[in-house]
């Protein structure tokens, strides 16, 4: 088949930038990566891009096609070529470009390192025997464990674009992989760190990470799980956490969001007073509904009773999100089809649905034998 590509060429040393068009004959099963190989082998040896495994495992070939991050080795060209479309290929976003399609991954790795991406069991040496964990317990972090650190989720992260210091979806999903690990003994310490400025409460919920991830990690859901775990552990000083808590209070008291009180409940009274002038501007347009008399939903007592009931049942924290993943798995990777990325079912994450009401407790960190 004939394949056309427009590739953004860039040299960070000279600053030269150009959109070059290439055309080639490629086998029908060719991926974007195969096509780049053809360009490099036969047309232009100066084209720079990263690759290694060619089979969606190493995470080297993340790049943008028509502005959206993809793994080049996962992207088949047949349908695109048949449609006569010539896609624009460029380097991933939110990372500095070194040359052509190669980005500098240093800022990415710095953020991964910042979440301490290793197990902290809370002891140096296991006392008597290995710390055995059930398959079921590990399945609750299976999705987060699938990350190949390609950077596709980071490429279009809207928060990171506006705040380059934001830890971002890859690092936070990695953090959840350890917060949810029953062998880890640093849960509270981790949640404190991840809840700081530029941490989990900086996520703007644009869901680009979820859309782009080629492995089904669902980083935005991982960030929500971190938030749920933080709240469950009483780590709720951040304004983002207070904001979220006010929605819970609203739902169980009046049913509807108590919108006007949201600002002082999130930012505190002092900051809210500083916002007075802004608020008055909105108030004259009816954008600041008076809190009294409250706008109460009919039968709100049901909503209150439901809150008490679910709290008694103890599916707190991340478990409340994990329990819904078995259903969402049916929608993972190409909605509607039962075939996954490898052309057969079963290659997507298999989440964990607890059959008991309460999660298995984390094993107590063992003390070194005296």
């Amino acid at each position: 088949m004939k394949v056309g590509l427009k590739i953004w060429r860039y040299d960070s040393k000279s600053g030269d930038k150009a959109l070059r068009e290439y055309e080639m004959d490629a086998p029908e099963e060719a991926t974007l990566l195969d096509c780049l190989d053809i360009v490099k082998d036969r047309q232009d040896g100066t084209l720079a891009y990263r690759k290694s495994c060619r089979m969606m495992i190493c995470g080297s070939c993340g790049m943008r096609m028509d502005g959206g991050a993809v793994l080049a080795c996962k992207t088949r060209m047949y349908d695109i070529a048949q449609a006569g479309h010539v896609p624009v290929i460029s380097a991933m976003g939110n990372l500095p470009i070194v040359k052509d399609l190669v980005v500098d991954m240093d800022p990415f790795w710095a953020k991964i390192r910042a979440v301490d991406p290793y197990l902290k069991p809370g002891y140096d040496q296991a006392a008597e025997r290995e710390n055995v964990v059930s398959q079921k317990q590990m399945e609750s972090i299976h999705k987060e464990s699938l990350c190949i650190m390609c950077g596709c989720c980071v490429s279009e992260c809207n928060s990171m674009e506006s705040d380059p210091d934001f830890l971002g979806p890859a690092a936070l999903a990695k953090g959840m992989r350890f917060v949810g690990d029953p062998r880890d003994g640093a849960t509270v310490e981790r949640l404190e760190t991840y809840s700081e400025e530029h941490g989990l409460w900086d996520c703007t919920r644009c869901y680009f990470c979820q859309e782009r991830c080629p492995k089904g990690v669902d980083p935005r859901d991982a960030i929500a799980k971190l938030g749920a775990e933080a709240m469950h552990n009483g780590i709720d000083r951040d304004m983002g956490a207070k904001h979220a808590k006010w929605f819970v209070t609203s739902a169980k008291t009046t049913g509807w969001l108590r919108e006007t009180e949201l600002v002082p409940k999130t930012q505190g009274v002092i900051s809210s007073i500083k916002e007075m002038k802004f608020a008055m501007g909105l108030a004259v347009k009816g954008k600041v509904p008076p809190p009294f008399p409250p706008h109460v939903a009919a039968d709100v007592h049901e909503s209150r009773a439901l809150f008490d009931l679910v709290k008694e049942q103890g599916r707190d924290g991340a478990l409340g999100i994990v329990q819904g993943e078995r259903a969402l798995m049916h929608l993972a990777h190409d909605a509607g089809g039962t075939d996954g990325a490898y052309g057969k079912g079963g290659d997507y994450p298999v989440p964990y649905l607890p059959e008991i009401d309460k999660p298995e407790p984390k094993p107590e960190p063992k003390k070194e034998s005296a």
Partner: protein
Amino acid sequence: MKEVAYYKGCLASLSAKELDISTQALAPKLGIELRELDSVTCCGAGDIHEAEPDYYLHLNARILSYAEATGCDTLMTVCNVCTLNLRQANHQLQLDETLRERVNDNLESVGVPRYSGTIDVLHFLWMAAGTHFPQLQAAAHKGLKGLKIAPFYGCQILRPSKLLGFDDPDKPESLERIIRACGGEPIDYPAKIKCCGFPIIQAREDTALAELIQPIEQAKEAGADAIVTPCPLCHLSLDAWQSKLKKQTGKDFQMPILHLSQLIGVAAGLTDSELKFKRHVVSVGPIVEKLRV
């Protein structure tokens, strides 16, 4: 007439009443009969999903249950965030019987009917650009007289596409289709599928404003007369927080922001009292003037 259960959500009940009023006035013209739900609460807006996820699921199950009790097969929303929250919970309840049974037992014990999973949650945008497009074409006879309109989708009506799925998340077309049908000219610009910053506008204002300025600035540069959005949260940040952009950057965009129901409503000849433009922070006057000429 298609009868649908109507869930207006928090903002359309409170600070964005103009969205509710214009939707109620417009729906019959598009062949949609709204049955407003009384006994419903907030969907949790992603915040309860994060703070108390199990409670989020139950709150949304309760909304779906009361929608089902109306006898309708569709729950219509007018907010992106409500749409994602309700669709996500709905998929979980429809596809996982064990989970549905547990949630239903809980609903029943507090006096809420069990939810059997028959409801489809649809945003008004999808009905107007999809099943009810012929009625929209017929109703939008007054036209927008070639006004240049910048479509702004907002995030949670596009992504995650596996839960939403009406539009191509990278190349959506539904708003453009509606703008054209109403006699306007859709403006294309890169930020139309990006975030408006609203979810973190209180906790991280600087980051949020850096997101917010992109669609407004790009739409202005592309010559838009107004921006239209299907989400009241996007509307609130785009409209009400423009003054903060002015304070921070010195740029006074004065970009009118329309709810989708208002845009169609103008073309369908809704009255001033049904459009409620006076509830906007940024004046819609300039486009009203253009339409009058």
